[in-house]
């Protein structure tokens, strides 16, 4: 079997279609193109309890995703959760008195950080801190409080 130019063409087509397949997976399936970490700035917020928040959880404002959580750590001095967020550089006009809260998408959905812009004229810069935060609602805690209150009222 001598190799012919038809075979070369077919091999070329095969390799090209394989690369197209991988490219399709990268672009269409994992959405590599939409958000790159390069053009973003970092802000941090401290929560009493960050609940089920994870690295890579969404950060959104007014329901639109504007960034991702990049790191979560525990501060052993203040016993708070320190959440670091990468915000897309296009959205660089968040006021300094922005409120951050941990919300849950739907009843059983994932947790995400919601940013509620305040009224200040100064904007958050790279490395900025959000002072006003609202912790995640822990379902067990809320249920416990509710049951406790219901029992109190009965007496």
């Amino acid at each position: 079997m001598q190799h012919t130019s038809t075979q070369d063409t077919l091999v070329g087509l095969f390799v090209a279609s394989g690369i197209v397949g991988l490219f399709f997976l990268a672009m269409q399936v994992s959405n590599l193109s939409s958000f790159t970490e390069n053009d973003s700035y970092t802000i941090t917020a401290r929560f009493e309890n960050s609940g089920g928040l994870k690295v890579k959880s969404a950060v959104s404002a007014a329901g639109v995703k504007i960034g991702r959580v990049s790191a979560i750590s525990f501060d052993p001095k203040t016993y708070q959760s320190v959440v670091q967020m990468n915000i897309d550089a296009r959205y660089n006009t968040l006021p300094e008195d922005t409120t951050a809260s941990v919300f849950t998408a739907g009843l059983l959905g994932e947790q995400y950080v919601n940013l509620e812009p305040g009224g200040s004229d100064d904007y958050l810069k790279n490395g900025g801190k959000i002072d006003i935060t609202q912790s995640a609602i822990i379902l067990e805690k809320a249920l416990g409080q509710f049951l406790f209150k219901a029992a109190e009222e009965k007496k």
Partner: protein
Amino acid sequence: MIEFLQHLGKSTHTSFTKLGRATYFLLQTVTGILSVLPRPGLLLKQMYSVGVLSFLIITISGLFVGMVLGLQGYYILSDFGAEETLGVMVAASLVRELGPVVSALLFAGRAGSALTAEIGLMKATEQLSGMEMMAVDPIKRIISPRFLAGFLSMPLLAGLFSAVGIIGGQIVGSGLLGVDEGAYWSQMQAKLDFQDDIINGVIKSIVFGFVASWIALFEGYDAIPTSEGVSRATTRTVVNSAFSILGLDFILTALMFGDD
């Protein structure tokens, strides 16, 4: 009892000897790749018989696997009112597991058995010894190009399998069952990560391609040079490749997707 122990010892001994030969063979093959590089014609010819001829079976199986996943996933997810996550389910199971594994199994069945039979017959008809007589190293001339071709084709085939499967799932999911097309893609894009899912899937398929071509070529090269020996070697290729691919898949999955 003594006989049993003797038998056990003998079979252990043979299997270790075989593993040793296989490792030596692999080393020779890998060093032989260097002498393939200046002669891309040899590689192209093997890419044709290993890759292009497997193209059809891979794409058609990928399409049907994706369609079945779409159908079954829809029935289960619709119980929970979560049909919109069909895209995530189809894409994650294809990219992480089914794409690399099923395409590697098909590859072992389609291309691996052909490689074993071809090389085993070459050995049986003394073509390999003939080459040695002419001072041509059969490993460099015959084995290495085939190994490199299998190694390079596998990730491409697995990528094609996953891509076609995801499209197949979309055809069934949103074409026949009425899942929203936008939700199918956007949920998938939100949940799947390039690094964690796609790169790991590609790494898996590279490992499987390596192992499947190694087993196929070694079994052919090591076959007893009779027609019965070749047929046994072909069977062993398919069986051993399937075992190693599935076993390695478990190990790789545990390593890659272990901690969230």
